[in-house]
């Protein structure tokens, strides 16, 4: 006889309970070993056995596996998507871990010990002891220029990164400046070229000598890498075209912040445009402080 289906919940018997953090212990151990290697060799892409997760590729399967591997009972989890705590992806992943790990969650950057993110680094400066987990669609910064994985691995091994500058050269030749505005390539610890994940280049300087541990997971590509605390992270550039983060002439329409990353939104049916903070937690804090 087949068992009738009933949704899992905390007070059902043991057969329905997920292992802590969803993944089984052996998978977590495999991931932790890979993460230790990644931390030991900053910026180096470590292959791992990516598992099927209960969400599609491109929705953060890499990030969610890393979070599952490092999360503990005492952790306080924050999940953001494009800086916002309240978008579908962020809400789902936060709820997922609340259910499968039973951990506390928060939207306040300062209160979080573990932050899984898609495409942003919070405006609130990170602190020692905090861990950032980045969702990465394409871990290989050279991929658009060199299709062969065999070749890109050799390029990393021999530290031949002239090719990355070919892309920046093309940007300047075509647009007059380095037009790459997100997923802007970085040199980690003066050794490995790495993708910072599709964060805006506005966030690149936050990677440099950050007190927090940065972990990057690409589920579909089965690669993870790390930037340990206080690691040198340099955004590539030319001598005569130095790295430059985005600037806005506007301030946030909601909180008045002039030094945060702004999203352009259409506010009403008349097509009125507004610039507002992409980091919803930061924006809320600024408004609360002003009151």
């Amino acid at each position, binding site marked *: 006889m087949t068992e009738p289906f009933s949704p899992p919940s905390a007070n059902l018997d043991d057969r329905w309970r997920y292992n802590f953090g969803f993944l089984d212990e052996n998978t977590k151990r495999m991931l932790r070993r890979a993460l230790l290697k990644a931390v030991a060799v900053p910026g180096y892409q470590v292959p791992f056995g990516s598992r099927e997760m209960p969400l599609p590729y491109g929705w953060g399967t890499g990030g969610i596996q890393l979070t599952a591997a490092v999360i503990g009972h005492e952790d306080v989890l924050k999940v953001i998507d494009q800086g916002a705590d309240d978008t579908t992806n962020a809400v789902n992943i936060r709820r997922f871990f609340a259910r499968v790990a039973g951990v506390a969650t928060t939207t306040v950057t300062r209160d979080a010990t573990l932050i899984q993110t898609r495409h942003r680094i919070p405006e609130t400066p990170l602190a020692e002891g905090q861990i950032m987990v980045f969702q990465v669609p394409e871990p290989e910064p050279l991929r658009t220029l060199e299709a062969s994985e065999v070749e890109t691995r*050799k390029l990393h091994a021999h530290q031949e990164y*002239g090719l990355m500058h070919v*892309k920046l*050269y*093309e940007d300047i030749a075509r647009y007059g400046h380095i037009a790459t505005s997100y997923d802007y390539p970085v040199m980690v610890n003066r050794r490995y070229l790495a993708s910072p994940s599709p964060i805006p280049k506005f966030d690149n300087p936050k990677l440099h000598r950050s007190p927090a541990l940065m972990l990057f997971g690409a589920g579909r590509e089965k690669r993870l890498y790390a930037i340990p605390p206080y690691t040198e992270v340099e955004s590539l550039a*030319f001598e005569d*075209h130095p790295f430059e983060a985005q600037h806005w002439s506007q301030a946030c329409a909601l909180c008045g912040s002039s030094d945060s990353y702004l999203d352009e939104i259409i506010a009403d049916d008349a097509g009125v445009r507004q610039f507002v903070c992409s980091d919803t937690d930061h924006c809320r804090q600024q408004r609360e402080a002003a009151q």
Partner: protein
Amino acid sequence: MTPILSVQGLRKDYGNGQGCFDIDFELFAGEVLCIVGESGSGKSTLLATLAGKLAADDGSVVFRDKNERAHELTRLAEAERRRLARSEWGYVTQHARDGLRMNVSAGANVSERLMALGERHYGRLRAAAADWLEKVEIGADRLDDKPCAFSGGMQQRLQIARNLVTRPRLVFMDEPTGGLDVSVQARFLDLTRRLVHDNRIAVIMVTHDLGVARLLAQRTLVMQGGRVVEAGLTDQILDDPQHPYTQLLVSSILQA
């Protein structure tokens, strides 16, 4: 005078009778050497083995770099081989798509090797690229065009610029005129001849065209069945061929 390349007893055996065997020769700075022979004679295998693209089964290849340092290429670590390949050597292929990056501009194609050697000044890179485009008779106004918008002859000339920009000592060329019309070919050969002469670059060129050898090369190796059957000064080999196979090749040249 010491040779920049000394090859002794070089062997690459595919195990089915194909490959190249017992290859000996020396190449001096500024010399152009043609390797001629029909398809399957082992000439491309020899070129790829010399350039380290294939691992030799036996023998020795000693290369002397700009600082007169000798490198045994058959035992060279991959990292060192790649360093030599981007600073001291060039490699021009028959098909431009194998030798160029078709999805980036001509300027980026030419300056890539400079970037690989650490040049990080956009203005200087662009100036060098424009200068080399002019040298290979491509207008500097084509700097931002992609190679796929170029004719076959222009693509081959772009390969030359892309390789010579770092002033290598030795350039390997594998049938560089193979796909070109005769008139286009003449322009490519003349240009190559001049640039090689002006920059004192040694060239090893694989071709099945004896006319190309006559025009460009002081020296020629004739290959058949993986072996060098005749070697010497190009004019001597073409005017007084000794080996039956060479005599056949020479008598097969179409007289214009």
